[in-house]
C-alpha cells in the first residue's frame, strides 16, 4: 500500500462504522460495541502511524487527490504537521470516549443509534481536519454539527431538547455565516481549493472583500468555538448531552470546528494581519476571564466544567493570536492538553452521575472514599487544568504567559494568571463538595464504576501526568511541525501545490 493511501481512511473508517452500526446493531446484540471499539482503535493507530509516516516524507506534507484530479480542479486532502497533530488529538480522545461509552451508555436505550451518531461526528471532525478544499470543509463541518445536535438531544428529556434546539439554531446561523463567507471568497477568487485560493489572494490587489469575509468567518467559527460574545449555547448544550458526548464536544469538537478552522482560514488562506490577531487575542482574554467568573458561581458539576471549556479555549486563542512561535506553540500545546484533561473531567462527572445519580454539588459529598479511582483521576485533572507544576496544564499555560510577556502584553499575561487562579478556586470547590467531606446518607451504598469506564479515565490521567514530556527534544517534532505550519502562513499554498504535483 502506498503511504499516501492512508489519508482517506480517516473519513472512510468512521463512515463505514456509522453505516454498519446502524445496519447490524439491531440484529446482532452487542455487535455495535465491537464495531465501535475496533474502528476507534484502528483510527487511533492509523493517526499515530500517519504521524510517524509524515516524518519520512520530504517537506512533511502528504496530499491525496480524490479521483486523481490535480488540486485546483478536484478535491484534495492535505495532511501536514498541523492536521496530523489535530488528528492524533481527536482520535485519541475519541478512542477513550468510545471505550468509556461501552459501559456508560447502558443507562440509555438504543446504543446502536448512539454509536452511529458518534461515528458520524468523528467522521465529520476528521474530514474537517484533513480536507484541503473550503467547501468540503463546510460539508464536513455540517456533518459533525448535525450529529452533535442529535447527540445533545439524545436523552430526549425536556432540558436536553431545549439545549439541543438552542444549539441547533445557533449552530445553523454560524454555518450560514461561514457559507456566505465561502461564497464571497469564491466569487472573488473563482476557486475553492484552499491552497489555490491563498495563492490567488496573495497577488490580488485592492482586496476590499477580505475584511468583510474575515468578519463573517470570525462570527461563524467564533460561534462554533464558543468564544465569549458567542458562547450562550455551550453551557446549555454541553451539560445536557450524555457525559461521554460532553467530553467529545468540549474536548475536541469546539476545537476542530472552531479553533482549527479559524487557524486554517486566517493563517493559511487569508494571511494573518495585525488586525485579526488583535481581535483574536482580545476575544481570547475576554473569554478567559468572563467564563471563569461565571463558572465560579455554578452548582451543577457539568455546567461548571462547560464554563471552564470556554475559559480554556480563551487561553488557546490567546496563544495562537499572539502569532509568535512561542505563543503558537503554547496555544497548540494547550489545545492538546485541554482536550485530555477536559474530557477526563467530563468523564469523571459522568462517573459521579452514573454512581450517585446526581451532579448537583450540594447533594454530593464524601465520594472520595467510595470511588477512590474517580477521585484520584479527578484530582489529577483538576490540578492540570489549574496549572499546578508537574502536570501538563502548567507547561502550556506557562508558555502562553511567557510568550505574552515577550511580546510586551503584560496586561494579557496578568489576566491569564488571574484566570488560572480563579480556575484553581473553582476546582477546589468541586473537590470539596464532591469528593471530600461527609458522606450523605442516601449515597452510602454506591460503588465504583465498571472497568471500561475506569480504564479510560486512568489512561487519560496518565497522559495528563506525562503530557509535559512532549516538550522534550525527542518528542517535540509533534508540536513543532504543527507550529511551523501555522507560522508559514500563506506560503502554505506553494507547499501544497508543489507537493500535489510531485506525489
Amino acid at each position, binding site marked *: 500500500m502506498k503511504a499516501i493511501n492512508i489519508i482517506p481512511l480517516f473519513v472512510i473508517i468512521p463512515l463505514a462504522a456509522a453505516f454498519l452500526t446502524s445496519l447490524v446493531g439491531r440484529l446482532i446484540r452487542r455487535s455495535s460495541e465491537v464495531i465501535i471499539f475496533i474502528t476507534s482503535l484502528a483510527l487511533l493507530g492509523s493517526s499515530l502511524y500517519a504521524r510517524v509516516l509524515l516524518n519520512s516524507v520530504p517537506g512533511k506534507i502528504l496530499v491525496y487527490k480524490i479521483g486523481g484530479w490535480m488540486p485546483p480542479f478536484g478535491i484534495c486532502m492535505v495532511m501536514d504537521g498541523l492536521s496530523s497533530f489535530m488528528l492524533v488529538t481527536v482520535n485519541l480522545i475519541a478512542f477513550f470516549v468510545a471505550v468509556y461509552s461501552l459501559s456508560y451508555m447502558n443507562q440509555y436505550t438504543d446504543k446502536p443509534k448512539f454509536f452511529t451518531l458518534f461515528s458520524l461526528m468523528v467522521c465529520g471532525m476528521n474530514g474537517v481536519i484533513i480536507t484541503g478544499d473550503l*467547501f468540503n470543509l*463546510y*460539508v464536513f463541518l*455540517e456533518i459533525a454539527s*448535525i450529529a452533535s*445536535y*442529535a447527540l445533545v*438531544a439524545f436523552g*430526549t*428529556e*425536556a*432540558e436536553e*431538547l*431545549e*439545549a*439541543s*434546539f438552542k444549539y*441547533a*439554531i445557533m449552530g*445553523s*446561523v454560524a*454555518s*450560514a455565516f461561514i*457559507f*456566505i463567507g465561502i*461564497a464571497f471568497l*469564491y*466569487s472573488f477568487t*473563482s476557486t*475553492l481549493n484552499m491552497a489555490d485560493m491563498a495563492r490567488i489572494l496573495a497577488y490580488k490587489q485592492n482586496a476590499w472583500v477580505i475584511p468583510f469575509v474575515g468578519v463573517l468567518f470570525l462570527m461563524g467559527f467564533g460561534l462554533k468555538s464558543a468564544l465569549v460574545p458567542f458562547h450562550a449555547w455551550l*453551557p*446549555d448544550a454541553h451539560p*445536557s448531552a450524555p457525559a461521554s458526548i460532553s467530553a467529545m464536544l468540549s474536548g475536541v469538537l469546539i476545537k476542530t470546528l472552531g479553533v482549527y478552522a479559524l487557524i486554517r482560514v486566517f493563517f493559511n488562506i487569508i494571511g494573518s494581519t495585525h488586525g485579526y490577531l488583535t481581535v483574536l487575542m482580545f476575544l481570547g482574554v475576554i473569554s478567559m476571564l468572563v467564563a471563569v467568573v*461565571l463558572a465560579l458561581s*455554578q452548582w451543577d458539576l457539568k*455546567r461548571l466544567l462547560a464554563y471552564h471549556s470556554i475559559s480554556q479555549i480563551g487561553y488557546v486563542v490567546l496563544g495562537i493570536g499572539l502569532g509568535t512561535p512561542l505563543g503558537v506553540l503554547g496555544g497548540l500545546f494547550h489545545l492538546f492538553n485541554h482536550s485530555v484533561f477536559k474530557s477526563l473531567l467530563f468523564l469523571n462527572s459522568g462517573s459521579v452521575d452514573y454512581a450517585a445519580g446526581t451532579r448537583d454539588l450540594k447533594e454530593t459529598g464524601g465520594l472520595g472514599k467510595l470511588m477512590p479511582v474517580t477521585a484520584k483521576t479527578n484530582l489529577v485533572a483538576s490540578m492540570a487544568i489549574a496549572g499546578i507544576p508537574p502536570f501538563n496544564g502548567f507547561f502550556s499555560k506557562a508558555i502562553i504567559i511567557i510568550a505574552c510577556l515577550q511580546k510586551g502584553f503584560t496586561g494579557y499575561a496578568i489576566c491569564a494568571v488571574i484566570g488560572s487562579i480563579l480556575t484553581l478556586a473553582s476546582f477546589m470547590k468541586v473537590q470539596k463538595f464532591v469528593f471530600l467531606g461527609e458522606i450523605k446518607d442516601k449515597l452510602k451504598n454506591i460503588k465504583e464504576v465498571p472497568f471500561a469506564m475506569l480504564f479510560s479515565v486512568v489512561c487519560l490521567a496518565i497522559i495528563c501526568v506525562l503530557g509535559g514530556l512532549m516538550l522534550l527534544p525527542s518528542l517535540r517534532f509533534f508540536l513543532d511541525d504543527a507550529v511551523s505550519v501555522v507560522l508559514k502562513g500563506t506560503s502554505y499554498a506553494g507547499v501544497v501545490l508543489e507537493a500535489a504535483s510531485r506525489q
Partner: protein
Amino acid sequence: MLFCVGLYGVLRKRNIIKMIVGLGIMEYAMNLFFVLLGYRFHGRAPIDAKYQDILNMVDPLPQALVLTSIVIGLAVTALIISIAIRIYEKYGTFDITKIKKLKG
C-alpha cells in the same frame, strides 16, 4: 436582504416554528446568493453540447455546490423540526419565553 429577514426571524421571534421558518429563509438566501454568483446575462445552461459557444455558459460549480447545501439545509431543518415537536410534547407550548428550565 433576504438573509437579514431570516436573521431577524431567528433572533427576534418568540415562537419556535417562526424561528425555524426564519432559518429556512436564511438558507434560501444564501443558496440564492451563491447561485447568482455564477450567473451571466444571456447565459445558457452549462451543458457541453456541439456548436455551442463555451464562453457564455453560466458557472456550473455554484450550482453543484448549492445542491449539496440544499441537502444539508434539509437535514438541519428536519432535525430541528423533530426536536421542536418533542419540545411541544414536553412543554405543551411553542413560546420560548415559557421554555426556560435551563438557566444561565
